[in-house]
């Protein structure tokens, strides 16, 4: 309000909103959007068991267990009805307050009477005036969102990429685009990917259809949500979130060809690389920051070193780490696998190791073949001297790799494989029961 910016933002209130009265209080405090989470879940049958993480939800809300899921009694109509009741109550309060619409109530904090709230002994001594009182504003000063932000999407880096790829997206073929890039360019490749997905669906285009070669420093979220068919090659370095939500595309980041430093000891990209990636591949010649591949569920990535908390909450996919790792590797990792060169066991998440949830194994023959193939691709794409050196003496060096594998994930894969061999439906009840047995539920 002071900086005359209130009309440019939307204020959303969330947290313990349950009734029409809560909505009105939030609106009077200045909110115009309202979030409901727990309440909506309870309406659907949630009884707040707080075992969402244990797969034992007795009312079938937060579980994969088919027996428990069959007990889910919620219907979408319940939420609809709840919201209608809520809206009704909001209208009743508005009528009581003399407002014609919710818009009129937004930011009218002078109408709040706090005495009842702070009379309770637990709240005694509480002074709410600092959040309720402030400078006076003109009666006609905007108190809610009235002006839309111009995101300048028509000037985005991808506009040029889309223009030059249009033909290929429509008719197939191959296009190569070479451009410089600066770190003010964010989410490069995302809008281009959107066009590919719109035209071709989730499976995208054949790999390498659109090749974009960039030189310079990329801004945040380089190649976010990139679908299959697009390859982004960056010579230089990148900011955080490279390959966020990667959906089948390919991303290569390497230092400039004339760089004199040792790439394997220098940072090539920032934190949270490959967050929530589902498919695709990344080859990163250099070290990246923290939370590498957090929540990855299917992408493959090769990197030469990582910071703390790598592979956190990973549920699928494959990571190849050729250098040092930070501490707390594999916290909450429940799926996927990683090949790590000269892994320091002390840096792996302690609880997961102690409880046996994560297993550190030698590479099997199949693993060795996959590793060799990925190293060869890494050398071809990035010119990595580190990977080339490992390949030179691969037989000996492959023994220095450790395979990180979640125990239950391995058991589930094996059970499904055995079931498929027996001709059973891997998603059927019988197999599910077996899975529950091998994973202890």
């Amino acid at each position, binding site marked *: 309000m002071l900086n005359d910016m209130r009309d440019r933002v939307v204020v959303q209130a969330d947290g313990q909103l349950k009734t029409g009265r809560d909505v009105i209080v939030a609106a009077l405090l200045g909110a115009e959007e309202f979030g409901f989470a727990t309440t909506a879940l309870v309406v659907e049958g949630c*009884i707040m068991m*707080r075992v969402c993480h244990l797969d*034992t939800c*007795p009312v079938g809300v937060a579980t994969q*267990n088919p*027996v*428990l899921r069959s007990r889910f009694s919620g219907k979408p109509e319940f939420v609809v009805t709840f919201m209608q009741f809520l809206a009704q109550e909001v209208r009743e309060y508005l009528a009581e307050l003399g407002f014609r619409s919710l818009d009129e109530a937004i930011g009218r904090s002078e109408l709040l009477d706090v005495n009842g709230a702070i009379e309770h002994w637990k709240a005694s001594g509480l002074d709410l005036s600092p959040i309720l009182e402030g400078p006076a504003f003109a009666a006609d000063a905007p108190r809610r969102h009235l002006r839309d932000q111009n995101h300048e999407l028509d000037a985005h880096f991808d506009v040029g990429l889309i223009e030059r790829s249009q033909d290929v997206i429509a008719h197939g073929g191959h296009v190569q685009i070479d451009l410089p890039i600066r770190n003010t360019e964010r989410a490069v490749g995302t809008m281009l990917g959107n066009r590919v997905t719109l035209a071709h669906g989730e499976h995208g285009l054949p790999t390498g259809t659109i090749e974009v070669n960039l030189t310079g420093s990329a801004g945040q979220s380089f190649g976010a949500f990139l679908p299959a068919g697009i390859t982004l090659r960056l010579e230089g370095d990148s900011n955080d979130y490279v390959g966020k939500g990667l959906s089948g595309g390919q991303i290569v980041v390497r230092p400039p060809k004339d760089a004199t430093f040792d790439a394997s000891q220098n940072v090539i990209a920032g934190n949270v690389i490959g967050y929530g990636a589902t498919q695709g591949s990344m080859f990163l010649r250099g070290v990246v920051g923290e939370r590498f591949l957090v929540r990855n569920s299917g992408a493959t990535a090769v990197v030469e070193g990582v910071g703390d908390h790598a592979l956190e909450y990973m549920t699928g996919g494959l990571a190849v780490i050729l250098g040092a790792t930070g501490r707390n590797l594999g916290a909450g990792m429940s799926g996927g696998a990683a090949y790590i060169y000269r892994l320091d066991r002390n840096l792996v998440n302690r609880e997961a190791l102690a409880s046996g949830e994560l297993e550190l194994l030698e590479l099997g023959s199949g693993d060795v073949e996959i590793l060799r193939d990925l190293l060869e691709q890494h050398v071809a794409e990035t010119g990595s001297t580190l990977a080339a050196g490992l390949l030179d003496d691969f037989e000996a060096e492959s023994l220095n790799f450790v395979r990180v594998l979640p125990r239950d994930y391995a058991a589930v894969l094996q059970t499904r494989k055995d079931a498929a061999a027996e001709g059973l439906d891997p998603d059927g009840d019988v197999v599910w029961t077996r899975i529950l047995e091998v994973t202890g*539920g």
Partner: protein
Amino acid sequence: MADPKGFLKNTERELPARRPVPVRIMDWKEVYEPGDSAVLRRQAGRCMDCGIPFCHKGCPLGNLIPEWNDLMWRGEGRAAIERLHATNNFPEFTGRLCPAPCESSCVLGINQPAVTIKQIEVATIDDAFANGWVEAEPPARLTGKTVAVVGSGPAGLAAAQQLTRAGHTVAVFERDDRIGGLLRYGIPDFKMEKRHLESRLRQMQDEGTRFRAGVEIGVDITWSELRARYDAVVIATGATAARDIPIPGRDLDGVHFAMEYLVESNKAIAGDQVPHQIHAEGKHVIVIGGGDTGADCIGTAHRHGALSVTNLAIGKQPPAARPDHQPWPTMPTLFEVSSAHEEGGDRTYLASTVEFLGNEAGEVRALRLAETEYLPDGRRVPKSGTEREIPADLILIAMGFTGPERSALEDQLGTVFTGRGNVERGDDYQSTAPGVFVAGDAGRGQSLIVWAIAEGRAAAAAVDEYLMGRTTLPSPVRPTDVAIGLQPA
């Protein structure tokens, strides 16, 4: 916590078997066979240790049920009884007598049979008594204050134990010749043998609580004398005024209130000589009222050797499963087959009693009943043209209780009664007479044993605060609290 998947591995309730009917009606001992500890452990493992344990709220005592379920599952009985005693003075009573609103509110009960909480409770305390873990907990120092507790049912005993442990000198007055109130003379031995009561009274005596049986306040001593002699008084006299059925023939010989029958029976079993005891042997017995007291009469009549036992209930037969209008976690009214029902007799629903018929000697010989008709305004009346007679030599009226007996309370203390007939009291359990507190059915009207104990505990906290200016005793319920239920629209 207990096994997180226990409720998926063991989906059914398992309770100890009842002894065979022909065997058990030959004696007055409890009907259940001893439980199996492996089964019990399995059942305790079904507790889900809920994030929001509704059993805490279902039970007015606020029993920490998931915690002692877990301890019993782990086989740590001593820790379990400590946890259980933390909120419940008398689990050996509740574990046998309570209708278990905790199980009605058990989260598992939403879509599976509920955890056998009551069985785990009773096993916990029985183990504890057997192992000598139930020891006297006398106060470290005395406060010098004196409290009289009038009435020795569960509310009075709970208040007395709490107050004694807080350091007050407590005397419990009971007008009957033995301590225990309904626990002593209301509950037949086949539901709870009196030895459980004796064990607990022994503990209380060792803690310093004094018992004065055979003293009726208002008669032997006036209420005002009592008040003058003690620093505080707790009225825990129960809701003993029975609901009557004012129809022709009520004065005939052989028509009695259930409580007259049960008290005499209990006295006889305890070894007393009861001249002219109301006895069911060789008689056609009719029990009016379909509740727990009615069931106690039925079981007692079977053991007396009744010729036939017929239970009449004026309302509809309740459903066997929870109906929609009584959703979880409320306590539904269900058609229950208690041990007494299992032992024989007929249960007739929609039965309105019209008249008791007698012979020339003034003894009851039959009962005339009609089908109940529900009027549009909800009233229940006998449907004309459906009258019939059934033979009856003994009729027991078990139609509930209307409230406390007014006796001399009003005159001698100036206490006020509410419109419902209960002793009026404030948020601190204090009646309109200063220093006189009201706990249990006397203030609430007839209710469950868990409410009695909860009120006794809470009233003790109020008395302690009144006497000392502050208290650390727990106060599980307020006088105005009610069981979880649907709010009337």
